């Protein structure tokens, strides 16, 4: 209820200010304080056949408002909420990020709060439904995946021209991930939980990314990220020393090429998570516990290619886009959540505006192990997704 009231109030106040801003164009001087409500929404229809067993559903829209406040030319606050329906038909509100940035000088930007981590590029740049060319995140990158999303802490970032190239840097200290020891969710023992608003230990996690744009036209970007720290709880004698070290490598190439009469867009990322080995416990039917351990390394990767004939003569043809993506996820062998999955996705998109897209995707996933899949068996899921997404 409280959340609803806050949102209604926020919306109302924005309309008033938007109206006031309107007037500024008719002769008033714009104020130095600015703010906007932006965001996105999406909805769709999904059909999936799990080893031939078909199910289909319409998906209620989700609504993701973003609040952007600019108190001065050097200060910016951004916050994102997400409203979704969960599988029990309840509305869930997520609080994705809320952070303040301060432009220290041409090369240094300081950020504090809960922000999306620049660990690779998918989370920070590509996940919103109106940016993602496909209807879902690659394997291992979505909610419950192994890719870190947001962190709470402080970050310094900046861009530096180096001749005709450009170097991007990001360094941050955050509360960091927490180890799931499996006490409450035995099937998730050894996984990392990424959203820690209050730290579970006094060790902060540190991370950073370096991005290099070697060409002056900024078409190519190569990035390397690292993120690590202690993940066990402070007072937990069994796990307090367990640490984790995560790496990611990313690539982005986007260019309008007259040879193909359109925009060629390539995006790829490879994530590797290494968590120190620890002992977890499996509850037997008689109530006793059996200790077990495993080499806790997992990885997730994707490579995506899309093409839009922006230079075609016909206005309708210009708005079509073709996309293909390969993604792969390997969870540790011996873990209760052990799995190996491979996925191919193909799609045809039609862009109704620069931020509104109608997507039709076909996707095939082959999964060994993991939720609902008996050990040693392979399950194939074929899906058809029809989604629309709109940024506003």
């Amino acid at each position, binding site marked *: 209820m409280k959340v609803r009231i806050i949102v209604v109030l926020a919306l109302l106040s924005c309309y008033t200010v938007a109206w006031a*801003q309107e007037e*500024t*164009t008719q002769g008033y001087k*714009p104020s130095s304080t*600015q*703010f*906007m409500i932006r965001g996105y929404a999406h909805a769709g229809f999904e059909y999936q056949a799990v080893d031939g067993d078909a199910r289909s559903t319409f998906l209620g829209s989700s609504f993701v408002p973003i609040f*952007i406040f*600019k108190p001065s*030319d050097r200060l*910016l606050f*951004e916050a994102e909420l997400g409203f979704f329906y969960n599988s029990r038909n309840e509305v869930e509100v997520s609080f994705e990020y809320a952070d303040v*940035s301060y*432009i220290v000088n*041409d*090369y240094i*930007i300081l950020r504090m709060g809960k922000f999306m981590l620049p660990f690779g590029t998918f989370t*920070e*740049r*590509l996940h919103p439904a*109106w*940016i993602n060319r496909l209807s879902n995140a690659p394997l291992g990158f979505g909610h419950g995946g192994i890719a870190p999303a947001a962190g709470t802490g402080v970050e310094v*970032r*900046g*861009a*530096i*021209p*180096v*001749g*005709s190239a*450009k*170097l*991007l*840097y*990001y*360094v941050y200290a955050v509360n960091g991930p927490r180890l799931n020891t499996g006490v409450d969710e035995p099937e998730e023992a050894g996984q990392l939980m990424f959203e820690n608003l209050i730290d579970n230990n006094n060790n902060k996690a*540190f991370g*950073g990314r*370096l*991005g290099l744009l070697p060409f*002056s*036209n*900024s*078409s190519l*970007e190569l990035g*390397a990220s*690292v993120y*690590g*720290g*202690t993940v066990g709880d402070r007072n937990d004698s069994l796990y307090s020393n367990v*640490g984790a*070290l995560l790496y990611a490598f990313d690539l*982005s190439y*986007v260019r*309008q090429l007259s040879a193909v009469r359109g*925009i060629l867009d390539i995006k790829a990322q490879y994530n590797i998570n290494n968590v120190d080995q620890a002992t977890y416990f499996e509850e037997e039917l008689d109530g006793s516990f059996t200790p077990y351990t495993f080499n806790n390394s997992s990885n997730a990767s994707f490579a995506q290619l899309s093409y839009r004939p922006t230079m075609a003569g016909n206005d309708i043809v210009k708005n079509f886009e073709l996309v293909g993506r390969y993604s792969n996820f390997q969870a540790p062998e011996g873990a209760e959540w052990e799995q190996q999955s491979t996925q191919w996705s193909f799609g045809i998109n039609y*862009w109704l505006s*620069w*931020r509104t897209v109608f997507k039709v995707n076909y996707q095939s996933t082959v999964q060994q192990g993991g939720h609902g899949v008996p050990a040693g068996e392979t399950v194939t899921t074929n899906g058809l997704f029809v989604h629309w997404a709109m*940024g506003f």
Partner: protein
Amino acid sequence: MKNLKTILVFALPLAVGLFLAASCVSTKVAMKSGAQLWGENCVRCHNTPSPAAYNDTDWETIGLHMRIRANLTAEETRKIVEFLQSAN
């Protein structure tokens, strides 16, 4: 401890890189127009918005938001925002 070492391995080259980089000035970006920088940069993550999509004050806010989100340089941001404001 192992983690700290690995982080240092990444942090040291970064620090050296920053020091060297800060002493160079990009000649290429300096020669480019706001329109060209808009065409090259704003398409890297999402479709390029047209200048008409927002008014002058909105472009200021979006310019700052994208400068931070996309880690654009100060000069790129200034030129792009000026272009968008002149062409909307």
